[in-house]
């Protein structure tokens, strides 16, 4: 029993115990404790993350001539710790009053906890997979576990979204299966190492097919561009903390597999040699462009949303693009930025989702047009959301800035101006949309019906605050995370980044977050000095005492600007991307529908013996030929 085996035993026991426990309170406490224990176990395995070791589980299955085994590398460890910590936060969040309210509204709390642990287990199975078959099985487990989580929401849209997700997931799985078949056809085995061999032996056309099949499979999970339609709605329509968990890490499993299969075993260098059209467009740059477009389009779709959860979920799709973009730069800081963004995004995305859930818990709605002014009622939630949106927008001093900085720096070094602009466009859109989020929820006019709203209880507050502390600390001292990143880079064969506690060492312009944050806080300090020590005292006034062109405001006057927050922008670009992908999706469905109609009519044809007649005529002819042949 090495550490990994012990870890798996603990995970299995956790799964069983959570599935068996019927008592809600005990279940909550026990599940939270299990997650804590998992974190501890992962910490014990941290040599994997710091020294780029590999732990292989003693457990393996031999089936139908395939040997499946499981192992932990730095990459698996990194994703696992994110998974488990997100699950811990979600579990803690739902264990207290939120769970009570969920049950009162008719939700099945035990099932939600079970869905969460199932998600965690399936993700760990995937992350630990040691060959393509175990990877595929883990992959499917993850898909169905998240499906289980999604259908727990009782709304009609949720089920629709979940079913849509299933269809997308199946498409991805089938693409993956086809890629597996290609590997198997050329080598007769499904080991990871066979990918490389298989790839080398292939003709150029097959290489494209091969890479694209893998990529489609993974991209669907990650919600990369042509396949982004399912994710946001599905994640948004998941019960509270479940959405936080899924939004934080679930779709990143696609990135993990991209890292393992495409980066580690196919190799980005090989991708670079696959020319598509011009000398500028090769497979790697194609993927980079997909990533860049993924940052832009979902972000601007997010900008149009008026539901807080959907807005966040769309950003989750968009942020995935940064990760892939960074990795596709194939250098030390770009890939480090991309990898680090996984953790960063998970931390602030989970925090943001939890704040939205907290708001929903108190107000009953996440509709951005029906909220406002909650900052006085829920100041700590506001603080968490503020930290979260600063992280999401990638502004200093939060961790989102660090990873985005690295991606930008790498784009600069590699001379990719258009990708750079695309990435910035994504960031700017994010700033616009997160401001809309925080403005429409927490700022502006407080509605009459929300005047009795209070801060959420501590069971919900603690995970939120904990996550925001992570957001800040890893932003302030990225050097805490960078050793992990460096060993991942070593494991999967990328250039290794040079780091220190404050950030990156890089010739001609590195980053030292301790200094940057210091300067920023110094600036704020001076600003505060100017503000608080100069000038007289200010009178706190009520929101109705407000300039309205001489109008007398009262609670009847809706004096809050929230609907269609960016009319000018939308007027211009609103119809640029209006549903073009939805349209594509519909075209595919219509085409299928048309073909199926043809087939249906064929089955309804008046004379089903038509084919019989055809074959019989040929056969009779052959009899005649045969006879006459024999006769002559």
């Amino acid at each position: 029993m090495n550490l990994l085996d012990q870890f798996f035993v603990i995970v299995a026991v956790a799964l069983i115990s959570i599935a068996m426990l019927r008592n809600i309170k005990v279940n909550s406490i026990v599940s939270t404790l299990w997650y804590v224990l998992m974190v501890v176990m992962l910490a014990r395995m941290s040599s994997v993350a710091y020294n780029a070791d590999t732990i292989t589980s003693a457990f393996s299955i031999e089936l139908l001539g395939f040997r499946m085994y499981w192992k932990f590398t730095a990459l698996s460890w990194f994703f696992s710790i994110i998974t488990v910590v997100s699950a811990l936060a979600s579990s803690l969040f739902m264990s207290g009053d939120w769970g009570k309210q969920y049950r009162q509204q008719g939700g099945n709390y035990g099932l939600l906890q079970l869905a969460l642990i199932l998600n965690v287990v399936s993700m760990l199975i995937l992350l630990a997979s040691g060959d393509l078959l175990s990877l595929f099985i883990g992959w499917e487990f993850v898909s169905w576990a998240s499906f289980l989580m999604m259908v727990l929401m009782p709304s009609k849209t949720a089920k629709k979204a979940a079913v849509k997700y299933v269809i997308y997931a199946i498409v991805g799985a089938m693409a993956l299966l086809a890629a597996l078949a290609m590997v198997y056809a050329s080598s007769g085995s499904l080991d990871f190492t066979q990918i490389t061999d298989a790839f080398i032996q292939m003709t150029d056309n097959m290489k494209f097919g091969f890479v694209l099949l893998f990529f489609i499979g993974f991209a669907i999970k990650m919600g990369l561009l042509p396949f982004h339609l399912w994710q946001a709605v599905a994640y948004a329509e998941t019960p509270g903390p479940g959405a936080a968990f899924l939004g934080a890490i679930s779709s990143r499993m696609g990135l993990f597999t991209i890292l393992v299969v495409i980066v580690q075993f196919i190799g980005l260098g090989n991708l670079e040699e696959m020319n598509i059209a011009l000398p500028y467009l090769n497979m790697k740059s194609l993927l980079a462009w997909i990533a860049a477009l993924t940052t832009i389009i979902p972000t601007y779709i997010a900008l149009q949303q008026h539901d807080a959860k959907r807005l966040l979920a769309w950003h989750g799709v968009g942020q995935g693009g940064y990760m892939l973009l960074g990795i596709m730069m194939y250098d030390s800081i770009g890939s480090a930025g991309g990898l680090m963004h996984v953790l960063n995004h998970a931390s602030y995305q989970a925090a943001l989702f939890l704040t939205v859930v907290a708001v929903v818990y108190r107000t009953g709605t996440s509709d951005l047009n029906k909220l406002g002014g909650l900052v006085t009622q829920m100041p700590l939630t506001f603080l968490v959301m503020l930290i979260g949106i600063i992280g999401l927008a990638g502004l200093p001093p939060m961790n989102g800035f660090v990873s985005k900085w690295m991606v930008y720096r790498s784009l600069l070094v590699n001379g990719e101006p258009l990708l750079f602009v695309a990435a910035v466009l994504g960031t700017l859109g994010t700033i616009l949309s997160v401001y809309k989020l925080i403005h429409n929820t927490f700022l502006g006019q407080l509605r009459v019906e929300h005047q009795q709203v209070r801060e959420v209880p501590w069971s919900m507050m603690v995970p939120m605050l904990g996550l925001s502390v992570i957001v800040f600390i890893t932003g302030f001292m990225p050097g805490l995370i960078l050793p992990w990143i460096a060993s991942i880079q070593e494991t999967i064969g990328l250039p290794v980044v040079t780091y220190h506690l404050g950030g990156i060492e890089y010739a001609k312009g590195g980053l030292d977050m301790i200094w940057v944050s210091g300067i920023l806080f110094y600036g704020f300090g001076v600003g505060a000095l100017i503000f608080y020590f100069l000038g007289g005292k200010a009178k706190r006034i009520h929101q109705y005492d407000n300039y309205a062109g001489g109008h007398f405001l009262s609670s009847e006057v809706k004096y809050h600007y929230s609907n269609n927050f960016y009319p000018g922008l939308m007027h211009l670009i609103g119809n640029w991307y209006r549903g073009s992908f939805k349209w594509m999706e519909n075209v595919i469905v219509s085409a299928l529908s048309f073909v199926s109609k043809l087939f249906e009519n064929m089955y309804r044809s008046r004379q089903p013996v038509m084919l019989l007649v055809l074959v019989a005529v040929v056969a009779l002819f052959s009899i005649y030929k045969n006879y006459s042949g024999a006769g002559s």
Partner: protein
Amino acid sequence: MNHLILLVVLPLLSAFIIPVVAKHSLTISRLIGPVVLVFILALVVLSWNSVGSNGFAIFLGGFLPPVGIVFYIDHFSLMLSGLIAGMLLIVWPWNSYVAPRQYSLYMLLTAASFGLVLSADLFNLYVFYELLAVATYGLIARQKNPAAAVAALRYLFVSATGSAMLLLGIAIIYTLTGTLNIAHLATMTDQLHGLAGLSAFALIVIGAGVKAEMFLLNTWVPEVYSTIETPLAALLAGLISKLATVLIIRVLLMLFQQSEVLQMLLVVGVFGVISGEMVAWRAKDMLRMLSFSSIAQLGMIFIAFSIAGEVGLWIGLAMMLHHLLVKGGLFLLADKMQGSFDNLRGYAKRSAMAVAIFIIFILSLLGIPPFPGFWIKLMLILNLAEQNNTLYHYAIGFILLATVIEAAYLFKLVRYLFQDEEAATIVSTPKSLTFWYAQIFALVLLVSLAFISPISNRLKDMASQVANPDIYINTILPSHLSGGNP
């Protein structure tokens, strides 16, 4: 071991006895069928071990082949016999209103099925096939639903034409070779090449394909399945179609191991898969959906058989068994969940167990790990990929596409089942017995999960036994290989 002949004789006998006995005692006539089936089941189980790896032949009336009538018995045919007996026991109509004549039809069907499985002679196959057809026409036409008569009539037209073509095919083979004993034919396969041989095979495949729900010959499927009782539909979809497939396999393996023939089968299979799934996607009621899905599954089985050698055979066998279990189970469930999808709104609240079983079945059908369906589909796809022919590679694409479509419609249905608002009208009347069987099927499916390796090994053994014409020939015509002239 000659007592295995009872497999055919006993049901046939009872089929004629039942109406006579019924005149004296209705109860006894009702009991005869199940007793016979149980007896046969026991017989099959008991003689399992005594059948060696080579199989053995029963020469009826002592006439030696190629002249006499020969039954060939190996593990494959024993397994099928067991399945037939078990399946019939499950769908056996226990209701008190069933007329004794229907029991004799069932027993006739049983006898024909055993004959089809055991027969080692092309013409005997034809006879039993026809007998099977007559029994099914009768069973369908005996349904209370008057629409069933129409469905039966239309089915009869297609099927009878098919049978006539089967006969034509047999005629061609006889013209070419002068014998109809399969083992004897297997020794002179080289005479079956060429256009005439190919057209003979085409005729046989098409003739049998009518019942095997092969593409383009399956237009009767939706009509029939939607008008008859679901247990009978389960029998037709689960068992009869497989028996017709067995006929095709026997002919294929013994006589037509030619790449053109295999590719023909592949193309037909691919069309079946795609068309079946596509139309099932449009279906708006349970039975229609299941029938078209069953067409697609049969297409998949044909694709599996189109892989040359024992690999294709064991995958095909596994798929057959899996489909038998899953689709049979689904049809049995459909007895509980009948009607249009609108009527099934919010069904999960009414019967969580039924929906859970339903989901297990469809997950396995789709090939989601770790269910058995996944391993079968995986093996199919990997082995298709290994073929040195692009046609097979395209087939992979079609199978995967079909799976996506399948997922789309199955989960559309799942969405209906889990919807909050319940349907205004509830049409289905739950029958507890079929539901129990469905549960047992699901349980068997889940238990088989633990025995994937042994099952697959057993199937491989069986396949290697079946796929080797030498064993077959050696058993039936022992003199042939030793140089003697039959």
